[in-house]
């Protein structure tokens, strides 16, 4: 292993080969590894043993905050801070306050989904060792990469390389830190 390495990167040419490889790497018990693809491959989450994404919680909490904000804001503005009489109707009614609160539910829920996704993915990030690799630029084009980090407890120079070779990768290389 050259010094100052981040990971061992194996290139694949078809989604089927990648899916198969991911399954085997997962079975071998690695933890710090990932698959890089130009588009999400159907069934890859299961092959890699990834659990259901937690983005939903961020969105749900965002939506709840949005709805509460809308209702409280309208109650505070029209029924508390500056009471406005409209046609003898109650100062506050949840029905008239519903449409803006509904919109705010969606607004805050959407921000929750997007920001939650970015937070869980630790994005934006300005630097990634893989993005310096010339060959890796193909990961957004038509190539598929399985990358096993050297920081993994199971990582071993020969064993890991042999595993990736046995999975049918045509090109394996070290990625610098």
């Amino acid at each position, binding site marked *: 292993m050259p010094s100052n390495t981040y990971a061992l990167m194996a290139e694949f040419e078809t989604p089927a080969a990648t899916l198969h490889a991911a399954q085997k790497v997962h079975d071998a018990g690695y933890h710090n590894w990932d698959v890089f693809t130009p588009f999400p491959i159907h069934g890859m989450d299961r092959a890699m043993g990834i659990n259901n994404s937690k983005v939903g919680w961020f969105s749900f909490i965002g939506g709840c905050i949005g709805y509460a904000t809308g209702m409280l804001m309208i109650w505070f503005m029209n029924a508390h801070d500056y009471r406005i009489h409209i046609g003898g109707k109650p100062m506050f009614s949840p029905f008239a306050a519903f449409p803006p609160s509904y919109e705010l539910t969606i607004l805050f829920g*959407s921000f929750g989904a*997007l920001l939650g996704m970015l937070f869980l993915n630790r994005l*934006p990030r300005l630097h990634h060792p893989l*993005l310096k690799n010339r060959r890796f630029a193909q990961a957004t084009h038509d190539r598929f990469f399985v990358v096993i980090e050297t920081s993994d407890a199971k990582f071993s120079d020969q064993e890991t390389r042999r595993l990736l070779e046995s999975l049918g990768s045509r090109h394996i290389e070290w990625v610098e830190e």
Partner: protein
Amino acid sequence: MAQTPKSSVAEEQPTLRVQGPPAELERVPLVANNRGLGWISDRIAGVVEGKTPGWWKICFGISFTFMVVCFAMILYLMSTGVGVWGLNHPIMWGWAIVNFVWWIGIGHAGTLISAILFLLRQRWRTSINRAAEAMTIFAVMCAGIFPLIHIGRIWFGWWLFPIPNSNSIWPQFRSPLMWDVFAVSTYFTVSVLFWYMGLIPDLAVMRDRAKTRIRKFGYGLFSLGWTGSNRHWSNYEKAYLILAGLSTPLVLSVHSIVSLDFSVSQLPGWHTTIFPPYFVAGAVYSGFGMVLTLLVPLRRLLKLEDIITVRHVELMCKVTLATGSIVGYAYAMEFFIAWYSGNPYERFLFFHNRAADPFIFGPLMHTPPAPYWWAFWTMVTCNVIVPQLFWFKKIRTSMLIVFFLSILVNIGMWFERFVIVVSSLQREFLPSNWSYYGPTWVDILQYLGTFGLFFTFFLLFLRYVPLIAIAEVKGVTPQADPHHPLGGAKPGGKH
């Protein structure tokens, strides 16, 4: 490069072999000519990376001029007052509101394509969703101008928002106009979020292909360091699904709330419970008209016929037909209820002030022609008769006819809003108040100016951002399916 040992999986023989459907039942592929994954990137990114085409420069010059006209008209309105428009008692809502509803309706197709068709697993949407979402954003921008400038004293526009002011008065939340502020601003924001999120992987494609430093930096900055990691894709796809799930009730609520601006009032022609679904159907109808108007020439000009195939155009025509028929049904139902309610004002408005033309129905009803009979019948022709032509496959597959009909759809929907807004106001309860309304040159240039704004942004979008979702189109090809032979699957769909 070691020799590959035989995998144990490869030796397993498939126990069950599923026969594919016969050739005549095979679906037309979403990407024609069996194009590979790399070709899709090259083709779509090539639009942005290639030399600026001559037609783009000409269109941009014209659009930009009109955009300047748009801002000049706003400036003239601000400096002089709303009197420069043709508004006068009793018609206090004229072209401004017509244009507002029209533009915002156009936006709805983008969200329908990006959100509702996603939830319905309509995979053909991937070829058109990016451009349609961009259309949504720019259309909502154009729409947003009108309510803002029609309030008279534009510098108080911020009073619409719940911002503390020196009078310590808050907005009045029982008004549908206030709901509208929230609906439209949320719609715009969520559309931008959804659009941007869809763009992140494609901006990474552009970053990885970039040759110049400026492009590398620009696309790199906005792609947020996307690597295509599957752990990222997992969260990304969930977030996309949630945004689609949130945008669906949003898009249905936006035009419903716009329609409440009218239907909560007491005016015959506006005071109608059918308005929310009728407005939403009309919005989607007009939006698909605009998507067709934009994409039918673009697929040709940008040589994208393999990605936006004839099948895509046909499917869009079918949606137009479906929503156009709903709109036609709603028109009929409005007339039925006007008659069945027994309300004389309602009957007068629909039969005598809208449908009575000088040739057939007017004489039949022994009534003089309605002042806006031509607007009403333009609307009926374009929105009820024209979409029915899409029943014919010959028409759906002829790009020239589709383009022409899509423009009629846009015209028809503009007239629908004109009929609703103007003909309802123009002969109100007191005959002594009756009046006629026509636009001034400022009205007309203001409207044309928003086209300049729209097309300026749309052309910039074409030039700097991939106009088709690269990653999503790749994902629907057989080459991307690990259980398809083209995706490298072994016999029996084993990977």
